């Protein structure tokens, strides 16, 4: 079921930081991970990922470095910073509060 774009917009940062917390990745890899982990629910327009990654870097939540693969091609990897981990924690708490509140409202509504 296609997810409403508005819902997705607010959550991209937490999704990306959440995945980078465990592993350093490059853009394409990140997109595939998001699709896999969400079982296809989140399917990004790939180009929109890069402005987000670059903004995260400007805000020092992630840092990047270039790596030369065995085929000679240069690839840019992204790694979460301590500041990014703190931001992720904050966003996660925010999400938990939000999620619980909605669940409670819906539950109350049913009763």
């Amino acid at each position, binding site marked *: 079921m296609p997810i409403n774009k508005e819902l997705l917009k607010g959550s991209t940062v937490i999704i990306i930081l959440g995945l980078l917390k465990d592993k350093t990745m*490059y853009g394409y890899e990140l997109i595939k991970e998001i699709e896999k982990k969400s079982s296809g629910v989140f399917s990004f*327009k*790939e*180009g929109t990922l890069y*402005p987000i990654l*670059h903004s995260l870097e400007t805000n020092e939540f992630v840092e990047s470095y*270039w*790596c030369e693969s065995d085929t000679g091609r*240069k690839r840019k990897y992204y790694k979460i910073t301590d500041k990014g981990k703190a931001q992720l924690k904050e966003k996660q708490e925010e999400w938990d509060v939000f999620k619980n509140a909605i669940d409670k409202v819906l539950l109350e509504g049913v009763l």
Partner: protein
Amino acid sequence: MSIENNLEIKTYLDEVCSYIKCKEVHEQIKLELLDHFEELLQDYLESGLTLEESINKVLQNMGDPILIGKQLNSAHKAKPEWSIIGLSFVFSLIGLLALFFIKSTEFNAYLNSAFYKSTIFSLFGVAIVFFLYFFDYRKLKKYSKAIYIFTVCILIIIHLFPHSVNGASYLHVGPLYMDFTSISPILFIIALSGIFMNWNWNDPKKFILALILSIIPIILMEYCCSTMSSCIFIAAFVVLMIASRAKVYQILSIIIGYSTILLSYVFSSHYRVKIYFAFMFTSKDPSGLGYLYIVIKKLIHSAGLWGNGPSFPTTDFVQRNGIIIHHPSLPFMHTNFIFTYIIYSFGWIVAICLVALISLFIVRMFKASERVKDDYGKLLIKGFLSILSFKFIWSILMNLGLLPIVSIGIPFISYGGSDFITNMIMIGLISSVYKLKSVNLISEQKNTLNVK
């Protein structure tokens, strides 16, 4: 499968970049997107589509180039480091203000013109910072060796044709008089930042070469009678060594080596020992070598929290014919002792606030150097930072009577044309480096990691 020359992909990438104002990131953005394209293309080709169809699918998947271009543009908006630039302007204003008050006590015709000259220098300085902000500092890198050799030559010329002003050897070029020797550490640092980039400290030959590169300027500066400049130079040199990842034993040997040379130079002459350590033993020669330190202590102790108001501390001397003449208690109030003047006139509260601002300035510069990715830029900022910190710390402590008096002024605040201009050049270059801080220079990266 290399598709960089495919027309559709090229057009797409060019369109994205056309919305990104920061030209320096174009290359790396194209590289990153191209990498993504190639991976996607691989997937589609493997699933059986033709090249033509795959490329179309890939471009579709990427999304609207205009949108991506605009979003990337806002992610790469260049933000100047306002606190560093702003604080340097604030310090210059404070200097101008202090000079204004000194002038208005109408003591010395020379000081009158100093105020107007300083105003012109300040305006010139603002223009320099503005101009250098838009200058690409990376263009300097290829001139590193040339700058080093140029500075060495000028120092030799000064030594061979000395033009002494107040004991310092000045460079005389037409109508301009420049204390080139005190400017030379900065030029050397600019040169050495480029030279020490990617310097292999593991190679013993490189270490010896570095030693030679450090000794030549020191010998020349000593010949031009500026021990202070050589101390500043060595401090900055050591910082550059640390920042370019020299070995600990190499750094220690340079520090210990030069300290030994400096100390043996000072202790080799009984007279020199007396001069340099006079600040500790002012009572031994109160009317001679210890005199100025006693005056400083007296002035700052009489300041109180809010100072004596903008005034010019004078001492009365009775001449033999009975006439009383007023003498400024401290010479060089507008240069070496401007901080003492500020304490005397405006009190300790103002002085402590000023020290707090200066500390903030130094901290911000350090933080900026950490945020910069380019090694050359990092070395430049750290080198400049060490020069400015050394001057700030020594001049302030000297103005409190806690360190030997040498010919050094507080950066930006003290009056002094050539020093002020060079300080502004440093600020301008630092802003240029900071502006391009996130531009990851791909060709310069040392790819040591192998992730997979």
